[in-house]
C-alpha cells in the first residue's frame, strides 16, 4: 500500500468526494524518550503530541493554535513525515482513495512530498544564503525532475510573478531582500510543485506588522487561485481569526478545543481557550478586560501534572480534574472539547 497515482489538483472540479477530508489525522502521538534529571523530570517518555485528531477539508484553512510546548509544530512535522509519528493515522485523500501517509515507503513518500509543502516561520534562516532566488525556487522542481533548462526558468519566473516578486531579482541572494520579500521567496518555493496542502508554520510571525497584511493577502489570493488548503499554525489570535475557517487549540500536546473560527471566538468552551482569548492585548484603549491574567506557566512536557494538564492553572479545577484526564468529546457537530465541564462553565 505504498504507491499512488499522480493526480493533479489544479482544475479538479469540486464535489463531495474531492472536498471533504483532504487530510484526516486520528490519534496522532509523538513520544520522545526522556532521562530523569534533578530538575524534576521523570524518566520515561515525553509526549510532545498526545492523541491528536482533526481533519481539514479541501480549500479550507485550519488554524492550529497554542503556546510554546503545546505540540503544534511537532504535529505539523508529523503530518509531513518530517518527523516520524509514534502512533496514529494520517490519511490523505488522493482523488477517490485515501493514502495512508505513514505506510508510504521511501520512494512513495518522495513522490508524495509534492502534495504537501511547508512555509517556515523565519525568513532569515529558511533560505540557503548561498543560493540565488532562482536556485532556491527551482530546487524542488529539479529534485523531482519536473522541469529543466528554459522551461525551469520560465516556471520560476511565473512563480515569482505569482508571489509579487520582481523577475529581475532572479540572480540575487537572500541577504539582498527584506523579511517580507524572503517570505515571498519561501512561498514561491512551496508552490513550485503545485501542492494541494500547504503547512504555514507561523508564516507571518516574524514579519513587521505592515508586511503581515501583504503576506496574508497574498496567501489568500493564492488559495483562491489554486484551490489551496492550509494548515495554519499561529499564536497571534487576531491573525487566526482573520485567516482561518476552523481552529484547533492545543495545550500540552493535547487538543483542548476545536470549532469553527467564528464560534470559537464568540463562545469558547474550554477555560484555556477563554484565557487565551482574554490575554491577547487589543489595539484599543477603550477595551475593558475584566479578566485576571492566567497564572502559572505551560507545563514541562517531561513533567506533566496528573489528570487534566491544565488543572494547575484553571480557575474552575476540581478534584476530578486533578486525577481524571478529560477525553476529547464532541459536544455538538463540529465542536470538540476536552474538559469535564464543557458547556457548563461561565467563561
Amino acid at each position, binding site marked *: 500500500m505504498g504507491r499512488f497515482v499522480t493526480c493533479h489538483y489544479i482544475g479538479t472540479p469540486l464535489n463531495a468526494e474531492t472536498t471533504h477530508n483532504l487530510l484526516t489525522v486520528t490519534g496522532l502521538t509523538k513520544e520522545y524518550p526522556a532521562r530523569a534529571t534533578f*530538575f524534576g523530570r521523570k524518566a520515561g517518555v515525553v509526549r510532545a503530541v498526545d492523541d491528536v485528531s482533526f481533519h481539514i477539508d479541501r480549500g479550507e484553512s485550519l488554524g492550529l493554535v497554542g*503556546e*510554546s510546548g503545546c505540540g503544534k509544530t511537532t504535529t505539523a512535522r508529523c503530518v509531513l513525515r518530517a518527523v516520524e509519528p509514534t502512533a496514529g493515522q494520517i490519511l490523505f485523500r488522493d482523488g477517490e482513495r485515501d493514502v495512508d501517509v505513514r505506510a508510504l515507503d521511501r520512494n512513495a513518500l518522495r513522490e508524495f512530498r509534492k502534495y504537501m509543502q511547508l512555509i517556515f516561520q523565519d525568513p532569515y534562516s529558511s533560505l540557503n544564503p548561498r543560493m540565488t532566488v532562482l536556485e532556491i525556487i527551482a530546487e524542488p522542481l529539479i529534485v523531482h525532475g519536473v522541469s529543466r533548462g528554459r522551461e525551469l526558468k520560465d516556471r520560476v519566473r511565473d512563480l515569482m510573478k505569482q508571489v509579487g516578486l520582481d523577475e529581475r531579482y532572479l540572480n540575487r541572494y537572500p541577504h539582498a531582500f*527584506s*523579511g*517580507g*520579500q524572503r517570505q515571498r521567496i519561501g512561498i514561491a518555493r512551496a508552490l513550485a510543485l503545485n501542492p494541494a496542502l500547504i503547512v504555514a508554520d507561523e508564516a507571518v510571525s516574524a514579519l*513587521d*506588522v*505592515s*508586511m*503581515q*497584511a*501583504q503576506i*496574508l*493577502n497574498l496567501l*489568500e489570493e493564492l488559495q483562491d487561485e489554486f484551490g489551496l488548503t492550509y494548515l495554519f499554525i499561529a*499564536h497571534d*489570535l*487576531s*491573525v487566526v*481569526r*482573520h*485567516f482561518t475557517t476552523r481552529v484547533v487549540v492545543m495545550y500540552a500536546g493535547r487538543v483542548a478545543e476545536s470549532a469553527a*473560527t*467564528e464560534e470559537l*471566538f464568540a463562545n469558547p468552551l474550554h477555560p484555556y481557550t477563554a*484565557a*487565551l*482569548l*482574554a*490575554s*491577547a*492585548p*487589543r*489595539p*484599543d*484603549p*477603550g*477595551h475593558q478586560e475584566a479578566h485576571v*491574567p*492566567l*497564572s502559572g*506557566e*505551560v507545563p*514541562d512536557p517531561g513533567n506533566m501534572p496528573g489528570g487534566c494538564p491544565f488543572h494547575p492553572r484553571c480557575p474552575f479545577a476540581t478534584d476530578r480534574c486533578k486525577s481524571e484526564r478529560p477525553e476529547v468529546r464532541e459536544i455538538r457537530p463540529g465542536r470538540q472539547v476536552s474538559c469535564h465541564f464543557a458547556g457548563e462553565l461561565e467563561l
Partner: protein
Amino acid sequence: MKTDPQTTQVQTSPILTVEDLHVHFQLDQGVVRAVDGISFQVNQGEVAGLIGESGCGKSVTAQAVMRIVPKPGKIVEGRILLYEGEDDAEGVDVAKLPRNSPELRSVRGGDISMIFQEPMTTFSPVHTVGNQIMEAIRGHGEPDKERARKIAVDMLDRVGIPRADERVDAFAFQLSGGMRQRAMIAMALATRPRMLIADEPTTALDVTMQAQILALMKDLQAEFGMAILMITHDLGVIAESCHRVSVMYWGKIVESTTVKELFAKPLHPYTQALLESIPRMEKREGKLKMIRGSVPEPFAKVPGCPFHARCDHAIKGKCDVGAPPELREIQPDHWAACWLYESE
C-alpha cells in the same frame, strides 16, 4: 491590583527630555542615520510608548538614553536631559556624561534601568541570578552584602517568583522563560530607579505570560511611581499599558500624542495605515488593507518625507522633495510630521 493607565494620575513635570537626538552608525557602505533628529518627553510617573517597526530606530533611542549604543554607533547630536524632580529645572545631560564616569554609572542602573526582550542575554550564564541582582544593588547605594541579599530576595518575591529564597541562588538557565523575565524585572527594579526602559519586554513570551508580565509591570509602576519608556512594535501592548505614545518611522518621530487620541484620531498617514492593516480579534475583515511597498533601505537617501513612496495621500512635488516635514503641534497635545496639515 490592576491600574488603568488612562485614569492614573500623571504628573506633567518631565523626568526625561530628549532634544533633537541624532545617532549615526558609520559603516563602510556609508552612514546609517538610525535616529535622525527626534525630540520627546517622558513625564514623572508616566508610561510613554515608542512604537515602530523594525529599523525605525526605537531600540537605538533606548540604547542612547542608557548610553549603551553599540559601536560603530555614536550620539552625534542632541541632548538627553534627566531631571531629579519637579524642582529640577535644568536636568543632567546624559549624552554629555563621560563614558565610564561615576556620574554615568550612577544614572545607568540607578536612576534609569532597562529590561530587554531576551532575558537570557541579560544574565550572565555563570553567575547566579541573586549574585547579579546583588551586584546591581551594591553598585547603587547598598554596599552591605547581607542587606543586599535581602533586597534581592524581596524583589524576586515581589515579581512573583515562588520560593524566592531558594531561587535567588539559581542560574538563569534553570528558570523558565517567564521566570527569567520576572527575574530580569527584579534586577532592574531592585535599585528603585525613577525610570524604567522596557525594550520589547514581552515579545518573546507566550501570550498568557505576556498578560502576566504586563499586569506585573503595571502594578510595580503604580507601587513605585516610576516612569516607563515602553518600546514595542505591538499596538495592543501600547493600548493596554501606555498613557502617551510616539510613532517612529525610519529614524524620525512622525506622530506623538496620548494613547486615546492616537487610536481614536490618528493624524499621520503611516499611523492610519498601520491601524487599518492589522487584523482584529473582534471580527473577521475581508481583505486586509495593506501598506504597499516597504521601509526604505538603511543607506537609502530618501528625499522629502520618508513615508511618501508608500503614502496614499502623498502630494507630488511637496512630499517627495526637499526637507522632510517637522513634527508640529497640529491639535492640542497632538503632534504630527506631515505636510497635509501644513496650511492649518
